[in-house]
């Protein structure tokens, strides 16, 4: 079972020829991988905020929100993708919904933790200055919770990039598809290159987010 390979027979682990001939498919995979990751993490972020605000209203609500989202997190990715396929079909939508759900779990927890760590006297001072609940949240509490929230975004982004490879089986493209095609064609160079590209993408994304956090919260620098 060996469909056509791009290059030669010795089946090397690394091949410059693949880097050249496979350039366009690697770039396409990169673009698909980045797009879906950005959509999923942003969607998770947008949805996580109201849930986190709900969770901090009472102990009971916190237990319910954290517990319910935790159940989603326990479902293995391939199973969650498969559960969604009858609804969202063989498309990137399936991956985006599932990975947004996983991101949401991480982000709700980190936002709740971040908000809980805001010193009460700072909130009190803001209240004393006449800031209403909405402004207190936007100008005082969320900025102070930012390091925890960005830490959550970093974990969510790196896991999303890694989990997205599995979504190749629901037809989303990305590096996972190159890995699977490489396996079917028994072509090592393609598998290795796609894996490395995926790891590299995750590390670069993590670094960029770390820099973003430094820029957004200069006061946390020691």
């Amino acid at each position, binding site marked *: 079972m060996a469909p056509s390979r791009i290059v030669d027979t010795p089946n090397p682990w690394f091949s410059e020829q693949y880097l050249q001939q496979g350039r366009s498919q690697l770039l396409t995979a990169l673009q698909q991988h980045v797009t879906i990751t950005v959509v999923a993490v942003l969607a998770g972020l947008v949805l996580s905020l109201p849930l986190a605000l709900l969770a901090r209203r009472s102990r009971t609500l916190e237990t319910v929100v954290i517990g319910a989202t935790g159940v989603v997190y326990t*479902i293995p990715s391939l199973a969650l993708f498969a559960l969604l396929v009858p609804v969202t079909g063989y498309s990137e939508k399936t991956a985006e919904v599932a990975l947004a759900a996983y991101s949401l779990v991480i982000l709700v927890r980190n936002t709740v933790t971040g908000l809980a760590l805001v010193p009460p006297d700072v909130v009190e001072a803001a209240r004393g200055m006449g800031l209403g609940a909405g402004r207190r949240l936007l100008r005082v509490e969320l900025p102070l919770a930012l390091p925890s929230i960005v830490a959550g975004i970093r974990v969510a982004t790196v896991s999303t990039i890694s989990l997205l490879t599995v979504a190749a089986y629901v037809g989303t493209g990305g590096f996972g598809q190159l890995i699977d095609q490489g396996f079917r064609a028994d072509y090592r160079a393609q598998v290795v290159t796609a894996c490395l590209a995926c790891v590299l993408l995750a590390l670069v994304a993590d670094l960029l987010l770390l820099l973003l956090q430094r820029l957004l919260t200069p006061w946390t620098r020691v």
Partner: protein
Amino acid sequence: MPTTLTQWLTYGDPTMGVMARLVEHLAYTGAAVLIACAVGLPLGILLGHRGRGGQVAIALAGTGRAVPTLGVIVLFAVSPLGTGFTTVVVALALFALPPVLTNAYVGVREVDRGAVEAARGMGMTGAQVLRRVELPLAVPLLAAGVRSAVLQVIATATLAAAIGGGGLGRFLLDGLGSQDYPQLEAGAVLVAALALVVELLLSVMQRLVDPSSSSERKSRVR
């Protein structure tokens, strides 16, 4: 062959039925977790006892999050190891290692220094301190590490099917490959149910080992 969801959920074929796939899934999981514990527990405990080298282990485990599990399994499959039970187990053991190792290290390392000093002062040797003071106090974290490892491997073992292996992932990939919705839904239900049941069982067991532990769980990669 079954055609409806109910038929798939009760598929009794001795080699391809639900029971057979569940047994394969648990065999992969059991073997991988055993290997990870055999390597990770002694190593983590030793590093924690010595108080050195653990940061490197933790950093490595953190970077491991960026490595796509599918990529590793496929890399092993196109290596001379080939596809088969051993390949799957070795790859899964690699994913189980980080939580076991880092929790063992942190567990022993974080034991109250006062207790360790007191034991030394009573004339205990290094080995005695480890056996009578550090290990008993580290048990809750050791257990937490093994628990995340088991859940991680249960989830990742679905990918054994991606390289032609068995396990419950077989229903998912076969269902996805042939657009057989009842089969893939059955697979998703079975995999999700297995993960949730094991999660519940382990949290009960962990509470028995460590009554102070809450249901809060450290974030985990699949």
